């Protein structure tokens, strides 16, 4: 401020130096003049209205430096002027500091000092009873000034020579002294002039409109008469309409009801104009945002850090596109990165995937299911285990039931072959064959109760000793072989029959270590599903697997069909055997009926193997299962 002031002062001094003789006493107090231009203009101004208005010029003369121009009046007011100037000098100083404060707060130099009070445009009666009049910029209360007595104020005003310049500002609760500039403005307004001195009301007129090219000049013709006469035809038409309305022929339109609200997320398909078109297929709506898309979803929607980490391990397609996050306010949500991409993909989807109206038959899916007969109707089938055949010391690999169903033979990894009585579970025969037994089979002919056993690389034919003497005689003849003369030349031989005296049977010895004779079983280890083959009347297995399905959780070890009942069973390493009902119809178009009936459990797992073999009783709906736990179980209906 100081710098500016000095500058101004310097200029003033220079200016005033020319006028020195006229206004000597005013020089020290001439600090309130704004600028050079102002000073000049003031000169002009005052010279103009020099003798026009005496009453106002009195005061003017006191302030301005041109008091000399109107000498007669200047003398009369000289006293007043002096006092005024003195006051002015003091006031100006304080004003200057105030104006500077104001300048700090508002940039525009034109603005007056910003109002002290910040209450705004409110009726001031609201503060009538308050101690304060409002608040200043820093929020402090502006306390009201003390009310003076009328007498005091009068005396004060009488004393104060400048009293006439003071105006009480209600808003800020202070007395404001009108500055010179303002005074000038007021004067101009009172004279009916433009408030600003710069404005020239009589500037030369510039006609910007080009009249030369105007082809259709505005007509100057008087309004025709018909414009003022009401139309006869119109009134006739109105009468007609009125009559029609009265007769009820025309119903005046009801004002159309504007729908105030509309369903923002509603389906386009409901819009009537589009639905009119027969082939219009509305685009599928994108999924609406749910709770997890909220800016502040509840905690259960927020994935944990572990989950977020696990997303990184997922495939790009499986990864969730949106991870819910919490924000304290809507304002703090960042811009969505993929907004453009999403819209583009949506458009691409709509464009690239043509929509086709599908003809859908309305069928209850339940009705398409095959009607399975109830298990009760499919009785009898093996249900529960009543008998156990115990005696083996290792996993029972194979079982076989005699054609009559009276005996059951079993071979085990403990190197024994046993024959049991089905009825009682008694072990009737026991052969120690030395090696693990892979397979046992009864002769299907009842007249020759002999047993074939595959042991290691050999096949043993055993005489069970059942049957009467004649049958035994026959069997013994059958099982008699002459001992080979030279066993050493058997290099080119694959196998040879030997008499096995120990077990009262014969032995088919395989010289080359070959695969077991029972090759059909070898592949079964890896099969985990059951294939059902159609057995036609000749017993041939047709090559078409009717159906295959997996139900066992582990390897299926064996499957068995019942000879007379429509049953089949499968056993598996999961220590269970499944019993199914299976009917194949002679009509090839009809699918075979397969009903799972029962899961037979009871065996315990041993060395990872469960049930090794299952066989049906030839006559009864009973199932024998041979377990790796060295027990044979009989499941009865």
């Amino acid at each position, binding site marked *: 401020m100081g710098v500016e002031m000095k500058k101004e002062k310097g200029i003033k001094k220079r200016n005033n130096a020319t006028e020195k003789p006229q206004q000597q006493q005013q020089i020290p107090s001439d600090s309130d003049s704004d600028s050079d231009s102002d000073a000049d203009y003031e000169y002009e101004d005052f010279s103009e209205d020099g003798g026009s208005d005496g009453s106002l010029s009195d005061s003017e003369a006191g302030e301005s430096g041109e008091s000399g121009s109107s000498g007669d009046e200047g003398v009369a007011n000289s006293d007043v002027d002096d006092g005024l100037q003195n006051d002015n000098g003091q006031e100006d100083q304080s004003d200057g500091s105030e104006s500077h404060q104001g300048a700090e707060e508002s940039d525009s130099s034109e603005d007056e000092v910003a109002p002290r009070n910040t209450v705004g445009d409110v009726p001031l009666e609201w503060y009538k009873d308050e101690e304060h009049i409002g608040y200043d910029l820093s929020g402090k209360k502006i306390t009201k000034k003390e009310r003076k007595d009328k007498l005091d104020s009068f005396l004060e005003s009488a004393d104060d020579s400048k009293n006439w310049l003071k105006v009480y500002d209600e808003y800020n609760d202070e007395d404001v002294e009108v500055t010179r500039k303002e005074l000038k403005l007021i004067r101009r307004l009172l004279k009916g002039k433009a408030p600003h001195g710069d404005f020239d009301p009589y500037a030369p007129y510039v006609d910007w409109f080009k009249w030369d090219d105007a082809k259709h000049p505005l007509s100057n013709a008087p309004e025709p008469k018909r414009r003022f006469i009401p139309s006869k035809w119109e009134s006739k038409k109105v009468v007609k309409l009125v009559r029609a309305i009265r007769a009820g022929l025309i119903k005046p339109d009801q004002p159309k009801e504007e729908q105030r609200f509309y369903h923002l997320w509603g389906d386009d398909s409901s819009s009537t104009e589009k639905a009119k078109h027969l082939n219009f297929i509305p685009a599928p709506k994108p999924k609406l945002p749910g709770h997890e898309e909220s800016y502040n979803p509840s905690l259960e929607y927020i994935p944990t850090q572990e989950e977020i980490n696990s997303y990184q391990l997922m495939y790009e397609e499986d990864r969730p596109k949106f991870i819910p996050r919490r924000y304290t306010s809507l304002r703090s949500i960042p811009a969505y990165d993929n907004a453009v991409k999403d819209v583009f993909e949506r458009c691409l989807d709509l464009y690239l995937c043509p929509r086709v109206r599908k003809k859908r038959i309305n069928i209850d899916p339940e009705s398409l299911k095959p009607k399975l007969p109830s298990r009760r109707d499919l009785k009898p089938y093996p249900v529960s285990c*009543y*008998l156990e055949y115990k005696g083996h010391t290792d996993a029972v690999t194979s079982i076989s039931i005699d054609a009559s*169903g*009276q005996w059951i033979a079993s071979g085990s990894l403990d190197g024994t072959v046993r024959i049991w009585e089905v009825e*009682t579970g008694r072990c009737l025969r026991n052969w120690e064959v030395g090696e693990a037994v892979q397979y046992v089979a009864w002769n299907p002919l009842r007249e020759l109760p002999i047993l074939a056993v595959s042991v290691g690389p050999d096949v043993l034919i055993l005489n069970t000793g059942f049957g*009467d003497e004649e049958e035994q005689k026959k069997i013994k003849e059958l099982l008699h072989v002459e001992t080979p003369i030279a066993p050493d030349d058997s290099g080119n031989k694959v196998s040879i029959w030997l008499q096995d005296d120990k077990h009262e049977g014969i032995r088919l010895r395989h010289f080359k270590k070959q695969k077991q004779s029972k090759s059909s079983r070898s592949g079964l280890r890896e099969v985990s599903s059951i294939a059902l083959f159609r057995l036609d009347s000749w017993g041939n297995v047709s090559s078409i697997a009717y159906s295959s399905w997996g139900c066992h959780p582990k390897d299926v070890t064996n499957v068995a069909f019942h000879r007379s009942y429509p049953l089949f069973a499968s056993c598996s390493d999961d220590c269970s055997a499944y019993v199914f009902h299976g009917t194949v119809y002679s009509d090839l178009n009809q699918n075979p009926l397969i009903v799972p009936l029962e899961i037979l459990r009871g065996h315990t797992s041993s060395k990872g193997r469960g049930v090794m073999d299952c066989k049906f009783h030839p*006559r009864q709906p*009973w199932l024998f299962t041979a377990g790796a736990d060295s027990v044979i179980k009989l499941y*009865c*209906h």
Partner: protein
Amino acid sequence: MDIDTNAEEENSRRVQVRFITKLKPPLKVAPTSIAIPSNLTSSVRMSLDNFLLAKAISAEKILEIEYIKAVAPTKHEEPSFHDDWVSALDGSDPRFIVTGCYDGLARVWKAAGVCTHVLEGHSDGVTSVRVIESKGGEGVTVATASKDRTLRLWKFDTEESVNYPMKIRAFKILRGHGGSVQCVAAKKSGDMVCSGSWDCTINLWRTNELDNDGDLVSVKKRKVNDQADESQLEGEAVSTLVGHTQSVSSLAWPEHKTIYSASWDHSVRLWDVETGKDTSDIFCGKVLRCLDVGGESSALIAGGGSDPVLRIWDPRKPGTSAPVFQFSSHTSWVSACKWHNKSWFHLVSASYDGKVMLWDLRTAWPLAVIESHEDKVLCADWWKGDSVISGGADSKLCISSGIYVP
């Protein structure tokens, strides 16, 4: 105490009852009536309340309850050990017990642990033994069936006092079955036996010695040629009853004319001996393994099979083969069932679960459970009217005596 209910009276929630008995004084109570809760459940099939409702007994009278001694064995005698599983026994003669064993021998026991005779000759396990009703006198005839496809008839004297088991050879061998013989039953008069076999047939045989039938001549000849022992005869079947499709497992010949047979083909058949035709069938749905005829007017059929249910049929009921009673307290196959020869209501049943149960037709639960066997019980019978004998896979013959059967 078993309760034999008769007569009437009820009092809202309490029933006036009076206990009566035919027992002798020490077991008698004063004949005053007392009030007991009506929802009391006895070993009768239902609570008293339901019983009164079911029988439509007036509520105003005093219910008379006859009490009897519990039908339960009071004494378990020392088991008689065999060399092998006891597969069959017969206690129809009060003087002795005949047992069949898997070692091919049949034994005659006078009492627990007292073996008097060993019947030797079968080459395979004995499956069934039956005492043939003798016409008085000391000599007793016994028929045994075996897995070696033959039946043998034996004769011995019961009054012989011996210190050691006496070995006896069969006097007659009956050959003709094509499978192991599963059961044998004798006619009341004692002159014929019938046998059922795994070859699905029932054969009828004569038991008489040295008969003058024409078909025996050739047999005699052959016997003379082949057999070392002169006294052994061979017999052929008089007739064969064909009809069963699977093994005949049990037979009963209670009357002169009719043979009852149970088979693995799930049926019970009644055969007319004279015509050799089956007169009626009862189908069961399960394999039948034992059968006995008795009960009310000796007409009810008790049977057990490949399930834990003991079934009672009444063949006189027309048009149905549903059992009239079913008892299912066993947990495994029922291997044997026998009617008491005097009582109409009492039954014994044996099962593979190792239990022998005593039944009254009028109750739903067993009167007594005998658990003297550690393994499967294969056969059971009444003996002397007050004992139950049973044999099983633990090679024991158990005698539970002191059973009061009214």
